[in-house]
């Protein structure tokens, strides 16, 4: 009898513990409860429950701890300070899959907040155990372990190096080949986080044979998976020409162009980021992209999105055009310039406008043909207004000024230059007048048009110091016209004529 009563006490205690831990885990899912839980000292209560006899309580306690640590970094620090990590790491190796998932969740939740916390996790030897978890049969365990490794490696290069040294990369590549989509996503995201810090890390990832598998999965219909894959490939390709060439050799073109037409915005953004990272290295790679029709696809993609999603596409066009004039001409014939000028005028954000201005400058700076193609779309007044406006950020002003200067130095399309005579500041006016002085001596129709449109009059009104470059240009323009015309249009001519009338004595007959 008494034995039963004794056992009943134990039974009740166990039920109470189970109930407590389950309720805490449930409450921890809602952010508003977490403050209260923290103030009530939940950490110190959960810690001994991790060592509980009953496996369920252990798992649920680990789950609750994970959710608490996930919420903010104070709690995560409390987890670290409370010496919970070594216990978790030790039992990770021995327990069943549910416990492993919960423990890996705690490690992930702690490691995601800051590099110091991630370093604490690495210091207590969690990496080896996590890598062992990557070899587990259960895909949920693998996913949790890969997620934790990804979050740790995200912060900086040393932590990534530590993850790589623990031998995680080949196992992550194996994880990518697993059939479960969630596991593929997480493994791709972890590889992306590892390879983004330095070329050596990216090379390690490539040596494990990741590129082929990543490239195969571009065709997968799942949107989130495609995001991660494209992000991983772009992080690999961004470091050096060899890596970019290796990514290209995996035959991603023209398949990657279909990702530019995806419904998901971030897939489009990551795909254009990938193409940008490949295009920026050498002219040959840009040429390859243009030959595969990438320029047209990117331009269409820019047309179909808004805001920050467009930015990598705009930069890609700028990089392609910057390499050589043939590529710039290819961008022009793919109808890139109207699209870019649309971006320039309708985007509200300054950094996107700055990127569009830079890209237009790169396109227009090569030869008069290119400058004409840019000037015809009436972007130069927009650029000028951006440069002059006080609301534009400094970066935008600098970039638009450079773009205007580089285009103006090659522009011979006079109808676009004429508005500049009226409202340009002096440093730009110098270039405009210079261009006129180069074109007018050779073209008679242009001279006529210049006079009739009032340009000659405006030029006469410009005040320039004698001996300056501007004065030389004005002189060379004046030399193209007969003297009477120049005098006619010079300011104050009507006054001189009237003075002559005043001072004229009619001949006495």
């Amino acid at each position: 009898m008494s034995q039963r009563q004794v056992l009943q006490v134990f039974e009740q205690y166990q039920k109470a513990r189970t109930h407590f831990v389950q309720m805490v885990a449930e409450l921890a899912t809602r952010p508003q409860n977490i403050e209260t839980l923290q103030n009530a000292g939940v950490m110190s209560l959960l810690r001994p429950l991790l060592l509980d006899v009953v496996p369920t309580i252990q798992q649920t306690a680990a789950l609750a701890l994970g959710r608490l640590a996930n919420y903010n970094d104070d709690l995560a620090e409390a987890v670290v300070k409370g010496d919970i990590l070594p216990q978790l790491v030790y039992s990770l190796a021995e327990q069943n899959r549910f416990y492993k998932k919960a423990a890996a969740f705690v490690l992930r939740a702690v490691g995601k907040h800051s590099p110091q916390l991630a370093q604490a996790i690495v210091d207590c030897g969690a990496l080896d155990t996590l890598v062992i978890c990557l070899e587990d049969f259960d895909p949920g365990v693998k996913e949790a372990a890969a997620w934790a490794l990804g979050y740790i490696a995200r912060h900086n290069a040393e932590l990534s190096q530590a993850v790589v040294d623990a031998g995680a990369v080949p196992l992550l590549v194996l994880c990518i080949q697993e059939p479960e989509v969630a596991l593929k996503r997480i493994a791709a995201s972890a590889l992306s986080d590892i390879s983004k810090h330095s070329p050596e890390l990216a090379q390690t990832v490539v040596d494990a044979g990741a590129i082929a598998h990543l490239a195969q999965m571009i065709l997968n219909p799942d949107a989130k998976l495609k995001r991660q894959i494209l992000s991983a490939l772009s992080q690999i390709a961004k470091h050096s020409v060899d890596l970019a060439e290796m990514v290209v050799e995996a035959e991603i073109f023209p398949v990657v162009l279909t990702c530019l037409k995806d419904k998901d915005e971030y897939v489009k953004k990551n795909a254009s980021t990938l193409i940008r990272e490949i295009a920026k290295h050498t002219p040959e790679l840009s040429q390859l992209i243009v030959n595969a029709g990438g320029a047209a696809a990117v331009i269409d993609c820019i047309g179909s999105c808004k805001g920050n999603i467009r930015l990598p596409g705009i930069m890609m066009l700028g990089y392609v055009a910057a390499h050589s004039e043939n590529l710039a001409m290819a961008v022009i014939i793919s109808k890139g310039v109207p699209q870019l000028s649309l971006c320039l005028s309708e985007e509200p954000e300054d950094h996107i406008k700055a990127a569009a201005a830079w890209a237009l400058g790169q396109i227009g700076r090569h030869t008069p043909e290119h400058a004409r193609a840019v000037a015809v779309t009436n972007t130069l007044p927009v650029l000028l207004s951006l440069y002059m406006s006080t609301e534009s950020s400094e970066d935008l002003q600098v970039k638009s000024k450079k773009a205007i200067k580089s285009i103006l130095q090659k522009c011979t399309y006079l109808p676009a230059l004429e508005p500049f005579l009226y409202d340009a500041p002096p440093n730009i006016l110098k270039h405009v007048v210079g261009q006129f002085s180069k074109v007018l001596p050779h073209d008679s129709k242009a001279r006529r048009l210049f006079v009739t449109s009032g340009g000659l009059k405006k030029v006469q009104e410009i005040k320039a110091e004698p001996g300056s470059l501007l004065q030389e240009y004005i002189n060379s323009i004046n030399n193209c016209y007969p003297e009477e015309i120049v005098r006619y249009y010079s300011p104050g001519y009507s006054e001189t004529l009237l003075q002559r009338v005043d001072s004229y004595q009619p001949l006495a007959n």
Partner: protein
Amino acid sequence: MREAMATLARLQARSKAVGQQYYFRNSVVDVFRKKENDAAVKIQSWFRGCRVRAYIRHLHRAAIIVQKWWRSYSSRQHYQLVVKLAYYTMKMNLYNEMAVRIQRRWRGYKIRKYCFDYFYLKEYLRAVTETNDAIRDALEEFAEMKEREEKKAALEREEKKRDYQARKMHYLLSTKQIPGIYNSPFRKDPDPWELRLQKAKPLTHQRPRVKQKHSISLTSWLACTSNRSFPRSEILPPINRKQCQGPFRDIAEVLEQRYKPLEPTLREAEPINELKEAREDLRRQEWIRNVNDNMFLPFSSYHKNEKYVPSMHSSSKYGPNSYGCQRFRDENPKKWICPKDFQTVLPSFDLFSKYGKLYSKAGQIV
């Protein structure tokens, strides 16, 4: 002496008269003499003058001839020089003209062929436009296909949902006696839902689904079979279990006996012939696994009876083909005709030294 003195005196007396006479005679005659003298002088001077003038004339003529010949000679030299110069200039101009023509042709050819092929660029841009159009079409098609697939999937989902709804609402079907909701007698045709309800199969009763708890609760520990899930420590017996009626032993003891871990004797735990047994075990495993029981014979005994067949590379008289094995620029001294290198007979000219470096870099990307 007196005569002399007398002569002298006489002479002296006469001298004055002589003197006067002398003077008178000279002065009168002097005029005539002077006149004749002057005339003679005039004649002489005239003659002398003529003579000298003739001489001078002669000299002049000689000088003129000499000068004439000298001047003609030197002018001819000068003229020949001028002509030579003019001829030379004319020739050089002609050569320059011809050279300009050659250079013009050559430069045009070189630029068009090696540095920047304008037509190739135009072709390339046209090809790029075509590719762009093709890609744009293909992407449009792809997007349309995706749209269609999505629409189809959405429609199917809708269909499934409606079907499920119909199955749930099966009881709203109209009967002969009572027209259902969707089959009002005032309507001309029954509502499409009515037809759907007619087609739908009613759902079976839902069995109350027990939510499988992943965690291992106390009550299920009896079913544990694997080593891992068995709680290692002493565990409390389930108290809600009723004590069975009858002469049964205490369940704790029963379970203790049932799940008592094995305590083998030393003879079993570490037998003497452990190694032999392990080998036997291994042999048995291999016998299970292996497909072929024949031992894998080593090469030496295999080749005792075989004739050696040389490979094609070593048996052909031309030697192994290095294509694909070695690099293309490898040198094979055995194949050289003579041991010396080629000697340049003519000096090289830098025709192609600026190959690809002049003018625009555009044509390089070809």
